């Protein structure tokens, strides 16, 4: 069955989630991956959005973090201050699932500016919940398309802290959580090297070459001693994902 690189990425990201996870869900690609997991192998996964919707089970993907669908299908909905105080800072999430605009080899993220902060070349949306999600959740999964301008040697701005300068930098910052443990792209899956914490390729998607990964990464890519090939999306994974996107398009009036 034919599939796109984005579909491979979303499927690989969904597979990383466990049925028992309590997941702080970022909008966009993370939301698609989390709901695909819920609709396939992880029916009991707890999905929480920063709008305060707890254990939500949306039938269509939200365009915004606070769509009514999230509240209508939630166990309950709390205020935004409570979400950030009792739930995120309270340390109740096993996973924080983020996207980003720029990433470096230690999985630090920039969603703030391209160029200098005071006079940016491009002003990006900013951090939103990411700075505290990155330090408060048990581990962080990141989903991003690879490209030279997004996978960069040096970030213009550190919006959220991954492994910093690598090694024990998180521990030295007094952060007890694991930080980014998986980076899922349209080409491969990266995991931090146990020692250096540099994000290292542990699986390559079918048909993707190391040359292509190199061409789309702004630093010399490291590979794990054993690199697997990501299993292609199953027919079920694809049909569930496409159904989700189709329902979503209809609901957002794109069809109209």
């Amino acid at each position, binding site marked *: 069955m034919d599939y796109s690189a984005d579909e491979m990425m979303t499927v690989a990201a969904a597979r990383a989630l466990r049925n028992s996870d309590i997941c702080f869900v970022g*909008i966009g690609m993370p939301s698609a991956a989390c709901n695909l997991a819920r609709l396939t192998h992880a029916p009991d996964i707890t999905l929480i959005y920063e*709008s*305060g919707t707890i254990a939500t089970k949306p039938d269509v993907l939200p*365009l915004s973090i606070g769509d009514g669908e999230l509240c209508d299908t939630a166990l309950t909905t709390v205020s935004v*201050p409570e979400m950030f105080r009792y739930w995120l800072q309270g340390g109740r999430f096993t996973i924080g699932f983020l996207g980003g605009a720029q990433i470096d080899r230690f999985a630090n993220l920039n969603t703030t500016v391209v160029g200098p902060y005071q006079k940016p070349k491009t*002003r990006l949306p900013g951090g939103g919940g990411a700075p505290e999600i990155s330090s408060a959740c048990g581990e962080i999964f990141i989903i991003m398309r690879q490209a030279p301008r997004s996978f960069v040697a040096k970030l213009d701005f550190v919006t959220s*802290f991954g492994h910093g300068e690598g090694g024990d930098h998180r521990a030295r910052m007094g952060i007890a959580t694991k930080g980014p443990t998986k980076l899922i792209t349209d080409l491969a899956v990266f995991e931090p090297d146990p020692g250096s914490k540099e994000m290292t390729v542990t699986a390559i998607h079918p048909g993707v070459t190391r040359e292509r990964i190199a061409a789309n990464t702004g630093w010399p890519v490291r590979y794990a001693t054993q690199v697997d090939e990501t299993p292609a999306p199953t027919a079920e994974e694809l049909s569930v994902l496409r159904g989700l996107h189709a329902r979503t398009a209809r609901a957002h009036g794109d069809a109209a």
Partner: protein
Amino acid sequence: MSRFLPLAEAVESAIRDGDTVAMEGFTHLIPFAAGHEVIRQRRRHLTLIRMTPDLIYDQLIGMGCADKLVFSWVGNPGVGSLHRFRDAYEHGWPAPLAIEEHSHAAMANAYEAGAAGLPLAIFRGYLGVDLPKVNPNIKHVTCPFTGERLAAVPAIRPDVAVIHALKADRAGNVLIEGIVGVQKEAVLAARRSVVTVEEIVEDFGSRSANAVILPSWTVGAIACVPGGAHPSYAHGYYKRDNAYYKAWDAIARDRDTFLAWMKANVLEQGPEAFAVHSMRLRAAAE
């Protein structure tokens, strides 16, 4: 004690040039009708506070109402940039715009602290990131019990909070349900407030003992504006107009297109226009 007023009078009574104004609503219940009235009244030099500026602030900024924006995520959710914000911030059109940038956690805690009458909020945040280097309003306090260094930001205490709620009762109490965001905190933290509502009911009737209600004496002016959150949504009344959010991208990209759209859809309209939108959405949903 809250007062029931027509929208124009409600906004006029509360919002003055140079005020610090928080128009809140987290995707849900964004007070567009009140924001449009502020534009029609040509308020100037406002400091606008909002976690997610959204289209409402893109419109206010593009019409030259604001000198400064305090925010934690500035974009058109799921669509892209806010072009009027970027044009003002990057090119100073129609006027230069200063920014004060935080994280969601910081702003949510700052609203909570404002509602609680505290001068600051403390939280575990901004660890290892660059924002504290560019925002002097991010400081730290040390816990006298554990020695832990925690982030501190000033409480948000706006001159005016503007929200859209579901219902008011005849006594002037206000009910919010669904995604409640930081609206209650914004009103409790502010000196004055303007609340638009979908409807005014005799009383709220049977409800949860713990319903989210702002008592009359905590609210300033109340204006009944059905559909007043459009293109945002009102839980149980009408859905979010996602097509509008997507269409906005093209409208806002170009200065003239934007000005023409604002003239036709805001300057030459009144609050009653919102009822039309919401009825259309309700009809479409059936």
